[in-house]
């Protein structure tokens, strides 16, 4: 299903479109946007924690679709890999392990829903206001080829802005790329990794915690009294605990 959709999206962007009654580009834009927003709402509305995580996966997947639609393939692939493939795997992993009985269903009370709704609407208003106040997007700089490629991004990260030389000046003059922010981010990630490794170091409990153990299946109620004669003769403790010195 996803592959068919991306196929259609792929064809619609790459091939030069005849002036068709249907503007495929907007069709897919609406489709992906609908999926992204729809599942985002579903994340909030769902109660089962694991389903929330899964809706989040679909929502971010649709956002990646939007990036591909916008021709930013590198960022789309990055979104797929970092967000959906990395962060959400760990999120589902964490949710899956802790979603034992008491924590699976999270129900917000009525008051929380109203409050959350209010905050959401306020944020939406701010976003809309800022979106509509932007001057029409700058036309692509003269001389820059609009061919989406990962290479200019890579080059700019290494300090050479090949894609936008600002007025035809040679590529290597004073317009520095994003070398500095790139290095800062990598150092930052390193620190995060070291911190995570330190926090997650194995804290294995020395002696296994004694818990009351139902190793053998309890016989059905109807047989319980039937077996009562043999039951009270047992003086020693439960199966696994007991006098094991």
């Amino acid at each position: 299903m996803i592959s068919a959709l991306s196929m259609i999206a792929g064809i619609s962007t790459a091939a030069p479109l005849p002036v068709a009654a249907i503007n495929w580009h907007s069709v897919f834009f609406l489709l992906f946007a609908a999926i992204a927003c729809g599942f985002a709402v579903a994340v909030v509305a769902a109660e089962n924690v694991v389903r929330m995580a899964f809706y989040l996966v679909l929502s971010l997947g649709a956002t990646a679709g939007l990036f591909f639609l916008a021709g930013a393939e590198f960022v789309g692939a990055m979104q797929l890999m970092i967000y959906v493939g990395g962060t959400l795997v760990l999120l589902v992993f964490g949710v899956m392990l802790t979603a034992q009985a008491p924590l699976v269903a999270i129900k917000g009370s009525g008051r929380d829903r109203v409050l959350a709704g209010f905050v959401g609407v306020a944020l939406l208003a701010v976003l809309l206001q800022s979106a509509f106040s932007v001057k029409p997007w700058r036309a692509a700089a003269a001389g820059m080829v609009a061919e989406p490629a990962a290479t200019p991004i890579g080059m700019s990260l290494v300090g050479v802005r090949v894609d936008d030389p600002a007025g035809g000046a040679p590529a290597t003059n004073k317009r520095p790329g994003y070398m500095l922010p790139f290095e800062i981010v990598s150092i930052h990630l390193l620190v995060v990794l070291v911190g995570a490794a330190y926090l997650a170091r194995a804290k294995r409990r020395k002696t296994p915690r004694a818990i009351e153990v139902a190793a053998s299946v309890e016989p059905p109620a109807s047989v319980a009294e039937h077996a009562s004669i043999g039951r009270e003769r047992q003086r020693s403790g439960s199966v696994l605990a007991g006098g094991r010195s």
Partner: protein
Amino acid sequence: MAQMLDDDPRIIEFDVRTDEMLVNMGPQHPSTHGVLRLVLRTDGEVVSEVEPHIGYLHRCAEKIGENLTHRQWIPYTDRMDYLAAMNMNLGWALAVEKLMKYQVSEKARHLRVLITELNRIASHLVGMGAYGLDLGTFSPFLYAFREREKILDLFEEACGARLTYSYITVGGLTADLPAGWLAKCEAFLEQFEPIIKEYHALLTTNAIFVKRTANIGVMSRELAIEYGCSGPVLRGSGVDQDMRRDGEAIYTAMYDGYAFEVAVMKNGHYPRDHDYPAVPADAVLGDCWHRFFVRMLEVVQSMDLVRQAMDRYSACKGPLGEPLKLTEKMPAGDAYLETECPKGQMGFYLVSDGSAIPWRVRARSSSFSNLAVAHELCRGCLIADVPAIVGSLDIVMGEIDR
């Protein structure tokens, strides 16, 4: 701050520390040999406690033994360790002969050694194949069964059955070998020799196999002896004990004059009568690898014994001799005898009140004691190690549950 939190009723503190999980491995689990149920208490992948539950194959053969004559009970001994039924029959037959002080003919004695050693090879082949299956490799299982089929064909010609033979019985054997059987047995041994080298390459010295078995489930000498383990499990821990050499007089008399060396690591090295692969560096005496390696050595040792038994069997002139009558009376009294079966020392205890039907019959199973030590070995290992350890003990549920 933490103090304040404690008495705030609204904050419900879930016990979200890593909770231990009780997991049932079995009784219908592909890697437990037959119907064994292991209750694992695990903390994530680390197993903190293993509790074997047995009894799913319990047929109370001992109660039935109190209503049948000694020869009628032979088929029940077949069904105990169904992979080595000949050794079981021999154990019971010798126990009754010990009580009745009955001496079988020399020809029968050599034929018994020949047959039981062949059965030991077949049993170890199953043990090796199933152990490969426990560690995830499927092919050695089929190679082992291909060779075992040839042995079963030989048994089928000798006594008509392929798994539960009832061939060795009280007072001798039910029939003599058909003509041409010895030639076929020789041919089998001939082509089996190089294949053993192939199994060593496939499993014993395979890097991943060594990584999965070396230094895992290490059992010390004292622990093995204290739990009454026997056979390859005991010899894998370096205890030099083999009932064919140290057992009762009536049993060791069968092996008089046979040249064989017990497959155990004595003063640092295994027997060097054939060229066996070297012990890997990180294998500790008493771990799964050594138990497996002792079984592989015993296969070669049994092949030598079979060859010697064939020569002696064809050399002796006398008749095979008839087994005892079905309702032969037994003298009052009791007798206990342990024989060296492929899985370990299988003991039969017989109490008679003077009639042909025993008063009480007791079968001491080797796998029963070998499995009892499993919970000591599996403490603190990973889940993937549990089948490796239980597989290295090479247990058979029929024998444990009787």
